[in-house]
């Protein structure tokens, strides 16, 4: 398989996630789409660890760290979301306008 196929798959997944982040109103679904974008970036890292000029397994180490940071981000995101829901009684992202000037 040429590496361009993997890169194209990653670009398509990233764009779908970006579209979801921009259009979805439910804050939980926005978190889903952020996870999708992070996974699309991980596919690039793993693809370049197999194909490329200096391809070696170090790309896998990088992906491991990315997965860890993404898991921490998901946990904190859900916690913030639950705190917001308790205060505002809504999960719609466009209802969160407390900091609007």
């Amino acid at each position, binding site marked *: 398989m040429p590496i361009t196929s993997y890169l194209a798959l990653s670009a398509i997944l990233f764009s779908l996630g970006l579209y979801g982040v921009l259009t979805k109103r439910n804050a939980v679904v926005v978190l889903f789409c952020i996870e999708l974008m992070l996974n699309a970036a991980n596919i690039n890292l793993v693809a370049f660890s197999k194909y490329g000029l200096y391809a070696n397994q170090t790309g896998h180490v990088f992906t491991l760290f990315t997965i860890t940071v993404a898991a921490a981000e998901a*946990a904190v995101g859900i916690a913030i979301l639950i705190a917001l829901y308790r205060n505002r009684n809504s999960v719609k992202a466009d209802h969160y306008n407390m900091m609007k000037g």
Partner: protein
Amino acid sequence: MQINGEFIAFFVLSIFAIGGAVLLMNLVRVVHMALALAFTLLSIAGIYLLLNAEFLAVVQVLIYTGGVSILMLFGIMLTRHRDQEGDSVRPWHNLLSFLGVGSFLGIVIHTIYNAPLTEITAEVGTFSTAWLGEAVFKQYVIPFEAVSVLLLIALVGAVILARKESKP
């Protein structure tokens, strides 16, 4: 491009991944969206297997398909999930986002297919989980410790944020 097993596997897995992502955009109920996301993440684990990253594939299944999906289900169940994804108040907003993201995707795909990428393949026979463990615990031990501190702080921070606030 000859048709071989790797091509067929990549084709099926990418169809599954993109199909799951498209379903995630189009489904109405939030719980169904969580299922579509789990399906996409599982297909990405298959893509990792194709790229000779067996350990990463297992980690992907454990953390994303298992952990993050369940965490998101908790997030759905603890908030209001019965109301459905309604129509946007601003219909032009969806169209504008679609055009912007579409042009972004077009530029990226055009760049990828015109970039001078080499066809050199790494010696995948030398890829091993033992090497990965040695690299993480020898060469990358400082980032490893930093990430462990980050996980601890995220754990404490999540508990503090989601805790029920006591009335003063």
